[in-house]
């Protein structure tokens, strides 16, 4: 395992991460999903010791946590980076004096391929360009793990697709893995191997994406259809103005339910029903 988290707890006055146990295996892209304030960033910060955990254990590369092990982790935070008054040359100078494995040639190769001017202040670059600089900085240290917190937020679909391709290339090396926290779950449907779903500080599920897609299906029912539906089969339920959305296990799927399928079930649908839906009292 590249990252192993066991029974991690972190309590705030109004929120708590509760008993989180997850693994980031080698060669996999693991998606971390959950609503705003679910605890995704807190979890990432606890892994990196940016925040102190109250209890639990974090192992990096099969060793107990040590700061020096972060040499092999590339980070992109949603809202945190180096001073934006620096330019690419400054950034290279800083990074090569921090990371033993920093590869200036690779960094400038990325910068050149992204067509980013070397002497322009980072703050003068577009949002997409800034993100690419961060990604180049994260990858150019030859990490074994990339931990990415909303790396594609605010980017247009073309740039998102380009960046996702870079991530896919990164895990072609089977020693490497990615923990990718994002709100854009459609991105994960294209590249993730596993999904960790956190809601309100609790782990809802941690499973391979294929398994999730094979396990869950969302049906849309009218009032009458809902009344006649076997309530025992419903995992989560959400009443809308005109219909009911129900999440069921695919093993309960029957021939007659085919009529209730109006769209392909997405991670968004599953997440939404878990967060905003209710369990069905029979």
């Amino acid at each position, binding site marked *: 395992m590249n990252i192993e988290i066991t029974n991690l707890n972190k309590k705030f006055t109004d929120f708590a991460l509760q008993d989180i146990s997850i693994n980031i295996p080698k060669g996999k892209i693991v998606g971390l999903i959950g609503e705003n304030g679910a605890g995704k960033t807190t979890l990432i910060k606890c892994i*990196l010791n940016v925040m102190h955990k109250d209890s639990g254990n974090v192992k990096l590369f099969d060793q107990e946590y040590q700061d020096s092990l972060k040499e092999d982790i590339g980070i992109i935070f949603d809202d945190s980076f180096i001073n934006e*008054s620096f330019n690419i040359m400054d950034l290279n100078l800083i990074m090569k004096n921090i990371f033993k494995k920093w590869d200036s040639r690779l960094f400038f190769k990325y910068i050149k391929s992204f067509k980013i001017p070397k002497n322009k202040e980072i703050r003068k670059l577009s949002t997409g360009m800034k993100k690419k600089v961060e990604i180049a900085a994260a990858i150019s240290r030859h990490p074994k793990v990339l931990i990415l917190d909303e790396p594609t937020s605010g980017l247009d679909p073309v740039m998102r697709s380009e960046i996702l391709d870079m991530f896919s290339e990164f895990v072609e090396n089977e020693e490497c893995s990615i923990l990718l926290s994002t709100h854009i779950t459609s991105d994960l449907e294209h590249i993730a191997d596993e999904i960790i779903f956190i809601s309100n500080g609790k782990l809802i599920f941690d499973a391979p994406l294929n398994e999730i897609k094979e396990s869950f299906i969302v049906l849309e029912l009218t009032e009458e259809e809902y009344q006649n539906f076997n309530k025992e089969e419903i995992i989560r339920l959400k009443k809308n103005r005109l219909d009911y959305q129900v999440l069921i296990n695919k093993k309960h799927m029957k021939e007659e339910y085919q009529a209730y399928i109006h769209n392909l079930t997405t991670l968004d649908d599953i997440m939404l029903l878990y967060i905003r839906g209710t369990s069905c009292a029979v």
Partner: protein
Amino acid sequence: MRGLIIKDFLYLKNTWKNLIVIFIGSFLISISLGNFLLAICSLPLLLLTSTINTFQTDEFYNTESYTLSLPISRKKIVTSRYLYTFIMVALAFFIGLVIYYLIYFIIRPNSRGLNTDMLKYLLMMESASIIVNAIFYPVIYKVGCEKSRLVMLSIVMLLLGIGSILSVYINVFDNKYFNLIKIINFIQDRGVIVLGCAVIVSSIISYILSILFYRHRDF
């Protein structure tokens, strides 16, 4: 650690134009006043105050989380900031000295306008600046840069308030056990030694407190 010190110096690189303009302004004022103290001390003073600005810049760009995600221990992060500060103190003194001698050899002002007392003032200013930083740094590491000014002001006002009450109503500063005038005279007589000791002691205490506070801080 070296990378973090370089990061702080690069911040300075981006402000050099402003520093030059301020120096030119203070130099012109010095010429008009016929006293070069301002010209000698302005640039060093700016460099010394810029050390606190590095905290502010880090806070503005949320760099703290990123810094803590690097393979550097919290202790080393604090140490690098203190090392940067001491390098800046040395640099500021050196620059002050260079300006002093440049003025001395090029302008050749009369003795009233330039004398060795000015170097003493430069040294005192440096020491005072180190002590101020030594007080500020642990507070910044504890509560962050933005809150630190208010916290410092609160502490100073509280101490002044307590001091006033003690001196006016209890007369604690003027009795046979505690004579404030004697203490002030002692400090004046042994200025360099007292200031030197204050700088060393405050720096050591400040460093230890900063590490303790930063070790427990969440971002």
